[in-house]
């Protein structure tokens, strides 16, 4: 009987938890049980802005036009459209004006375990291409991606669909197909549409191996095909691109915010559609090591042949990165590019500072 009464008293105490405790009230906090009040509606999309300021010095005039540049302000608007779809908009404002970098609707779960995207998006071509320029660790883009995909990377407007492929090992194995517009010839060095019906066809598959709790490996292969630019028509009516990529990550889950390592390699090949057409190769590899909670160091090596020049280019970059918080990153970078045609080295030093405001976004993986 006494036990029942004691239990009842405890249950009553549990239902009145506000009466417990010794914490003093904090004037910056809203009264318990309330939700944050703000002028905006809770149904508004998540809005955030990433700013990218960059300074450069050195004898490489192609590295950046001005000594100091506000390279980009990337605005993003992201929200669920309804229970089945979400929409993501990324607008990029920079010295060249405002442009839509990505704008797409995504069907999250189609019958059969599929997903589909409709709109404009950065193409799933290799691992690096999907990352927006302010969010890469580098002040520039690797030489091979510029040589084959253009300064801003490969984007298209159209349809993308993906599937997770079943396999006996239960691994993550995806298959992605894109069908979209051919990118503008001014924005890429290979492709050019001559008629409205020309299309960029692209496919990618990637496989993720969780080797250990702290180590994993991601392997991918991508292929793209679209009508070639007129200057490349001697190699065939279409240009074909292929890339293989590998990403190895290490992070101790017990100290996840202090130490990590990422190694990524991408090798790109290009060949026209004509029999016996010339094959061009390029690639890059980089290592980023997190040495302390707020510090990372890294290095990258580039080597590439170019569709617009007979000689290859190579280069190396080293960086030191400091993150005062999760929302701000400063880095000092040094780069040397060897121009084989001129048999000359070009050196640049960069200071890159990116920062973002708005809701906490997803940590990219």
């Amino acid at each position, binding site marked *: 009987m006494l036990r029942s009464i004691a239990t009842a008293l*405890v249950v009553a105490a549990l239902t009145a938890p506000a009466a417990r405790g010794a*914490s003093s009230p904090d004037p910056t906090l809203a009264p318990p049980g309330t939700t944050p009040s703000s002028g905006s509606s809770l149904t508004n999309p998540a809005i955030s802005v990433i700013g990218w300021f960059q300074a450069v010095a050195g004898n490489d005039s192609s590295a950046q036009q001005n000594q100091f540049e506000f390279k980009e302000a990337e605005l993003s608007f992201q929200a669920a459209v309804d229970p089945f779809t979400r929409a993501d908009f990324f607008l990029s404002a920079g010295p060249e004006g405002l442009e839509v970098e990505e704008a797409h609707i995504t069907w999250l779960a189609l019958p059969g375990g*599929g997903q589909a995207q409709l709109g404009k998006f950065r193409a799933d071509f290799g691992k690096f291409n999907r990352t927006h320029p302010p969010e890469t660790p580098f002040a520039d883009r690797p030489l091979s991606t510029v040589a084959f995909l253009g300064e801003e990377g490969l984007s298209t407007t159209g349809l993308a669909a993906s*599937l997770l492929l079943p396999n006996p090992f239960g691994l993550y194995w995806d298959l992605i197909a894109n*069908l979209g517009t051919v990118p503008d010839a001014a924005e890429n060095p290979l492709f050019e549409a001559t008629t409205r019906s020309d299309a960029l066809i692209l496919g990618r598959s990637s496989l993720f191996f*969780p080797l250990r709790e702290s180590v994993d490996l991601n392997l991918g292969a991508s292929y793209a095909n679209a009508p070639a630019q007129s200057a490349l028509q001697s190699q065939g009516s279409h240009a074909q691109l292929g890339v293989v990529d590998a990403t190895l990550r290490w992070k101790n889950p017990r100290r*996840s915010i202090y130490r990590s390592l990422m190694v990524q390699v991408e090798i790109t090949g290009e060949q026209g559609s004509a029999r016996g057409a010339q094959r061009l190769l390029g690639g890059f590899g980089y290592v980023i090591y997190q040495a302390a909670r707020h510090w990372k160091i890294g290095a990258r090596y580039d080597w590439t042949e170019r569709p617009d020049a007979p000689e290859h280019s190579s280069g190396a970059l080293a960086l030191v990165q400091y993150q005062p918080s999760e929302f701000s990153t400063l880095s000092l970078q040094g780069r040397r590019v060897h121009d084989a045609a001129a048999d000359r080295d070009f050196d640049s030093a960069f200071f890159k500072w990116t920062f973002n*405001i708005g809701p906490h976004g997803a940590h990219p993986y």
Partner: protein
Amino acid sequence: MKSNSREWARTAATLLRAVALGIALALGGTVVTSTKQELIRPAQAETRALRVVTTTEDLAAIAREIGGSRVTVESICRGYQDPHFVDAKPSFMVTLKRADLFVEVGRDLEVGWAPGLLNGARNPRILPGAAGFVDASAQVEILEIPASVSRAHGDVHPFGNPHYWLDPVNGAGIARAIRDGLARVAPADAALFRERCADFEKRLAEAVPRLEARAREIGITGARVVTYHRSWSYFARAFGFEVVNFVEPRPGIPPSPNHVADLTTQMKQGRVKLLIMEDFFDPRLPQKIARDTGVPLVILPTSVGAEDGIRSYFDLFDHQLTRIAQALKGAK
């Protein structure tokens, strides 16, 4: 005329490619649905164990209490990990693709990784708003909801302090949210889940006064305490001690030398009895502060599974209080 014909031919070719792509995807989808990973229909859910995926081990432990043999439970975050910073590995999407129920702590604790995993899992049953999605904070009283949100205060949680599982009283609210979620996805077993939840709540109600008595006995109740992060507000409320300062006053921002100096002075002069730190932070700075001030440092697990022997929600609090007792005893 000829160029028009060519244009039409190319348009037709593009459309054919699109149709081929659609057919390929549909066929691929058929392959997928023909495997064991197919969508779970209610009749199937009744004949096999429900797959529950939680973000943390604490939620997993409570889900096992409520679901019993009707569920298999898997946690994405291990008990020794910082739940704010879990890598959204694609392999977790495969796990979530098969889930019947997803349970998260909520209040933006997992905002850096769970939404990406859910969006990539291709599982409509567990998306927010679906029957298989459970926000475990829904039936819990949340502390420290900010009146205004600014990153000037660090990486604050705009929807309140999400570390609510560290008050054993809140275990009941978590259990009820999971019970309701399980009942939604397996209504035929709702009575079983209600019964098991009531039993869990009864055992919790019996454990709480025992834990409170133990806290008083070891001398933590009524004490002035410094903690590393704002993880311990609920734990402090549960066991009646006062958190007077933090090593990291603004979440995610390293403490300034001035703050460390002021904190050291405060701890020397302010009758601070204990310095508490989560087990996933680097202990070097708290260890130095403890040496400089003579205040004992205790490194506590924050979740089930953080150490061998912490297998249940009840074990977690027993283990934490034992550690505190050892630290306070060693300081005498």
